[in-house]
Every structure is written in structure tokens, then in C-alpha cells.
């Protein structure tokens, strides 16, 4: 059986590397736009880094939107049982 706390994927060094690799990939997808032009359909979507910004901001909005909706709609698990 694997040691619970010593799996290579859970070591802090691995996680730090994953973040570094992750950020490099992100940077690369944006910088690649210098070489591969994105054909925008409606003007703005051909701007440099538009996809990245649009994706990121949409997600931020959705997470906080969900948070707000959750304030109104969340109930304890046994809400319907009592």
C-alpha cells in the first residue's frame, strides 16, 4: 500500500513544479498568439489575450455569482427530511 502522505504527487516540491509548469503553459498559450493569429468573428475576440482574459473573468464572475445565489438557495442537507 502506498504511504498516504508520501505519494510523489502530493509532495510540496512536486506541487511547486506543477504550478511553475502550469504558469509557463498559460504564458505560452498567450504568447503563441504572436505567431498564430486568432481569427476573431466579432472584432474583440481577435485581440491579444482576449480568450485568456475572457475565460478567466467569466469564471471569476460565475464563482462569485454562484456564491451569491448560494446565499439565497443553500439549505442544510436534511432540509426536506424534517
Amino acid at each position: 500500500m502506498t504511504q498516504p502522505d508520501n505519494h510523489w504527487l502530493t509532495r510540496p516540491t512536486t506541487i511547486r513544479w506543477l504550478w511553475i509548469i502550469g504558469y509557463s503553459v498559460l504564458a505560452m498559450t498567450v504568447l503563441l498568439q504572436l505567431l498564430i493569429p486568432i481569427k476573431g468573428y466579432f472584432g474583440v475576440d481577435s485581440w491579444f489575450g482576449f480568450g485568456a482574459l475572457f475565460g478567466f473573468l467569466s469564471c471569476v464572475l460565475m464563482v462569485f455569482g454562484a456564491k451569491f445565489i448560494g446565499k439565497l438557495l443553500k439549505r442544510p442537507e436534511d432540509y426536506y427530511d424534517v
Partner: protein
Amino acid sequence: MFEMLPPALALIGGALLTALISSRQLRAVVVIVAPLICLYLIWQVPDGVVLRGEFLGYPLELVEGGPVRRLFATIFAIMSATGAVFAFNHARRTELVAAQLYAAGAVGVSFAGDLLTLFVFWEIMALFSTVVVWCGGTENARAAGVRYAIMHLLGGVILKVGIEGLLVTTGSLDIRPLAAEDFSTWMILIGILINAAAPPLSSWLSDAYPTASPTGSVFLSAFTTKTAILALILLFPGESILVGIGLFMVFYGIFYALLENDIRRILAFSIVNQVGFMVVAVGIGTETAINGASAHAFAHIIYKALLFMSAGVVVMRTGKHLCTDVGGLFRTMPVTMWCGVIGALAISSFPLTSGFTTKTLISQAAVDEGLVTVYFLLAAASAGVFLHAGIKFPWFVFFQKDSGLRPDDAPWNMRIAMLFFAFLCILIGVYPQLLYPLLPYAVDYHPYKPGKVLFYLQLLLFSGLAFFLLLPWMKRTLTISLDVDWLWRRGMPVLVQFVARIGKPPVVAARRRLQHGVDLLTASARHTMGHTGPLGRSWEIGTTALWIVLLLMIYVFAYYLF
């Protein structure tokens, strides 16, 4: 009489055999082979009406072929066979029988040439999917199954009202493009939309599917909503109200999935989300859009079943169904984890997966029609899908914290089913040319333009970044989220109690007053008519005769005067 065998018959026959055969091994063979025979028959159905019948003088078109019908029936049969491989060793016999009949209903709907035939198979689906829900075996499954059945029977009645109305006004039961313009067509549209889990009645899906057994929810994820999409394609292509309804579903699915803690309920909400994309496409209604809806339904059934299989294995192996109870399962369940990840990437329409080659068709249709808002909302939603299903599902189930659980990986038959569907997800992603020729219209579309791929990579990868940066705000909580079903699960009982409480004092007072009035009346009656009262006591005969003479005189006098 038959030039060919209706494909649904293969599944009905398979179900009967499954119910009768007592040997486990033989039963396993039947549940897997019957859908394959069905698949063979599906491909024998030529275009046009091939089997007619009659019911109460109405002409029926029991089997009508066509490209889009064949496409949906094909994926239903593939799903049924793969689901059987996944389930045969663990599901109850009742569940296997019900799942086959449920699939038979879906195949029957696919080939229904008239609305009456469609309705019959529609109800078969409703009945046997309810049985599949009940096979979950818990009290929750029982209650959710009852709510599920009520909703679908109600939807069926609405659909039937529409069909009757259409028959009266047009005299035809033929399945052909309609427009929602009068009462009957609206009823038909509403009846179909209930099965598509459209607002406001979406909650039956997320309510019932997660309570089914780990194998049952795999079957449930595939048929009901996708036959609704097929019905929309056949009956309401280009109905513009569908665009708005679909967009609502897309974001409803995302927000509710973000709030959810139950593993399979997250996936259930993302069904609504994905079906929303297809509803938008049907609403746009161009050839590219209909191709997109069909292709996306095809791909969706595969990756969503794959996700439900992966989640089902986790639920079966750990006995837990909440994100907060699992985590770190990647250590001992690598196959289940990888298959879950591939399904998650496909649903997020990551390049090289089936979601990318099918969902971008829908976006392309929005571009072609110049629908700017729709296009950008769909792009935002694609980011949201990655957020709520693409990363959230695998992250909270297989990674996250170490829950200390070390369950075994999937049993061999479940592995085969998952690996096959994972393979299909990638196959359709890499070789979309395999799927495109099966679509209803000719495809002139190339998903892998470098610029488009780069745009989606930016969009999705930065959504991933947002997920990990916002993790502190996405902590799972031990909660459920209210939906419209609150109205009948809580609102109605509360209303009844409230009315009872508010209504009690006036009712009591009114009853007391009534009682008082009755008492007075009785007392006065007793007074006048009792044996001592003026009307009750006995009089002498002479007095009575005198009174009669007097009355007669008054009468004669009055008669003479007037």
C-alpha cells in the same frame, strides 16, 4: 407483412429474455447482445416510412428512417450495449430489464413517424426510467422516483393534449416541423421541454438521477433528455424561443453544479448544462446548428455516461457520494481516475476530445447567424463547463485532500466499458470525419484551425487557473440548493398547514354560530309543534271545522274579487 424488423423489438425481446433466464452468464450475454442486434437493425432501416400500422382508424407510421433518426438510435444502442457491459455484474435483474425497455423506448421514439407512436414510446421511457430510479433501493430513491414519475406523467399528459389538439385542428399526426403558434403546438413543445429538463421544471433530473444505483444513473444520463432533443430537432427546428431557454439551462447547470456537493448531482446539473447547448442549437435551426445539436448529443451521451461510470465506481467502491467525504482516490483507482479525467476533458470541449469537434459546431452556427451575444455567452459557458465539471469533478473526487480511503479500482467489466467510452471520446476528437458523415446535413467544417484551437486553449486553461486561484471560495459545504421543486416539496405542505392554522378560528366560530342557529330553530319548532304547542296539540273537531269554513270563505271571496 414485415419487410424489416423494428429495431426497438430487439431490445424488448432482450428485456423479456433477461427477465426469464435464470442463468447469470446467459443473462449477461443477452443484455449485451440484444443492443448489438438492435444496432444492426437500425442500420437496415432505409430513409422514409418503412412500417405502417393502424390504431382506431388512425394511420400510424411505426418506423420511419432518416439520417438524424438513425444517428440518435445508433448512439442509444451503443450506449445500451456499453452500459450493459458496465452493469451486468452488479445491477439487479429488474434494473437490467428496465434499462433495456427504457432504451427500447428511446430507439422507438427515434424511429417514430407519427406523434401517436412517439407518445407511446415516450411513455414507455417514462415508466421504465422510473423503475431504474427505484432500483436505487433507498428511501431517497423511492421518494425521488415518485416525484420523477409524477413529473414525467404530467409531461406526457401535456404532450398528449397537444397531440390531440393538433389532430383536431390539422387532421394529421405526421411528425414534421411545426411552429409554436397555437395552444396545441405549445402543449407539444412544453411536453417535450419537460423531458429536456428545461426551466422551470429542471429539478426532476438532479433530484432523481443521483439517487439511482451506481449503474442505474449511467443509463438514466443517456436517454430521456436526448430523445427530447431529437424530438425538438424533428418538430421545432429554428423555434427562436429555444435559444433563450437553452441559454438559461446552460447557466442554470453551471451555477447549481458549482454549489453542489453530491458527486453525481454535479454531473446531473451538467447534463442540464450540456442539453442547454443543444437546445440553443435547435433554436438557431440552421443546417450547421442542427448538425451541431445532433453531433453534440452523440458525443455528450458518450462522455456523460463515462463520467457517470467513473462516479458510479467511486460511489460503489467507497459507499460515499459527497465530495466532502472522498478525495485522494487517484492513488488506488488510476483507471477510474483517468477515464473520469478524459470524460471531464471531453465535456469541457478540450481540443482532441469529442466535445471540441461537436460543440464548436454550435458556436460556429451562432457565428454564421451573427448572434454576437449568443456566441459570447456560449464561450463563457464553455469556460464555466471546465470550471464546474471539467476540473471540479476530478479534482474533488480523485485529488483534493487525502480522505484516507484506499478503495480498489473498477472491476474488469466496468473497466472495459469505461475504457471503450474513453477511447470513443478521443477517437471522435481526433477523427471527427468518422462522425460528420452521419450528421443530417453535409458538413463543411474544420474544427482544427490553429487560431481556433489556440483561442479555446486560452479560454479553458485560464478557466483552470481561475479554479485553482478561487479554490478557497469553492469549499464544499454540507448543503443542498433549493430549486423550483421547493414549491411542491415544501411550499405546498407549508401552505396547507398555514391555511389550516389561519382558517381554524373562523371555521370554529362559524360552526359555533351555525350550531347556535340550529339550536334556536329546534327550540322554536319544539315550542310551536310540540304536543303542547299551538300547532302540535289536539283541537276539538268543531273548532277545526269552524276554521276550515272561515278559510274557504276567504278563498271564495278572494276568487270572486280578482
